[in-house]
């Protein structure tokens, strides 16, 4: 089984970061798994972590009063889950629902935030990468909001 350190140093999301930073990040990380059907986090809960999905699929949901939970996005393997840890108020904006058995590497967001405040280089490197994630979400969401198929 691949260690957290090995996974982080080879994953394309962290590519280009210096070994010291990678080592620190690995120190904040652990492997977790979630059963199919369980919720990983709920809207409004404190967002103190982010995740790298190693196996399985996660649905981002919003709960609607009349329609129940609506899936607005699915996140596949090898993608990052969770960006709310990086921006105030540090609360989850949606629900995350495991659609299958999900294995993830979980990162201690609170610890990383504190380190980023002290080491701005690390902050910049992480901010750059998460900005990219958000940009992709935004582009997709904009297209989905257009009701193209009407």
């Amino acid at each position: 089984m691949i260690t957290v350190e090995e996974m982080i140093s080879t994953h394309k999301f962290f590519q280009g970061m210096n070994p010291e930073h990678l080592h620190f990040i690995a120190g904040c990380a652990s492997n977790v798994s979630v059963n199919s059907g369980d919720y990983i986090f709920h809207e409004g809960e404190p967002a103190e972590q982010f995740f790298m999905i190693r196996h399985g699929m996660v649905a981002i949901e919003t709960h609607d009063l009349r329609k129940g939970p609506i899936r607005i996005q699915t996140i596949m393997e090898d993608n990052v889950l969770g960006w709310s840890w990086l921006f105030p108020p540090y609360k989850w904006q949606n629900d995350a629902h495991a659609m299958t058995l999900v294995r993830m590497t979980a990162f201690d967001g609170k610890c990383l935030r504190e380190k980023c405040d002290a080491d701005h280089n690390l902050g910049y490197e992480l901010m750059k990468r998460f900005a990219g994630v958000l940009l992709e979400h935004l582009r997709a969401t904009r297209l989905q909001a257009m009701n193209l198929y009407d």
Partner: protein
Amino acid sequence: MQPDLFRIRRVVKETSDTFTLELMPVEAYYVHSFDPGQFNMLYVFGVGEIPISISGDPAHPERLIHTVRAVGAVTNAMNTLEVGDVVGVRGPYGTPWPVKAAKGHDVVFIAGGIGLAPLRSALYQILARREEYGKIVLLYGTRSPEDILYRRDLERLRSRFDLEVHVTVDYAGTRWQGNVGVVTKLIPKAPFDPTQALAMVCGPEVMMRFTAAELEKRGVSSDKIYLSLERNMKCAVGFCGHCQFGSKFICQDGPVFAYDQVRQWINRWEV
């Protein structure tokens, strides 16, 4: 330019606003051969005529299949027709999908909504000679799971070992265990070699624009990306002027175009 008579042999309700008509010629000897990507002008007696792409198997033109969305006067009238009713058919018109040019390539089909209908004909023809093509991938996006077109066909295709099918929806309830997200998100990871690929794309024009951009970003050359465009059509033979798109007549120069042929028009407003 008068229509030939065809009788409705079968009606299938596909989704809440989409239905499929299977037609056969009233004159038994008449064969309405077509190439995938072409369309017919379908006429409802006394109501009007509209262009509908042919979505059946080109190897079996005796079963002329059209999938129609009920959005206007003619299509709503068509939605009330029953088995045995007669419609007028003129065609086939238009340029086809580049099925022959795609030989030796990885073929990527990207469909949005009812855009799957004109692509299905090409898929039939390519699968009939599977060994002449590289990898085959079908990416399909639509509004919600209830709007998935040809669901049984898609499930059957997914069960094959020699191609990949990925379906996504814009939103879903929790019973949907598949992808949720815009169809362009499926492109970066789709299993094909961009340097060897030829893509056939059909769906709402916005979706085709973004899809073409995403394919180019991935390294597919613009002369290997094909789109099927749509405009108002009255005559289908290049005389009425309605289907003009820049310097192209959709009914004669299209509906299938290579992206580099239409790039200067498609990214502009109100052309």
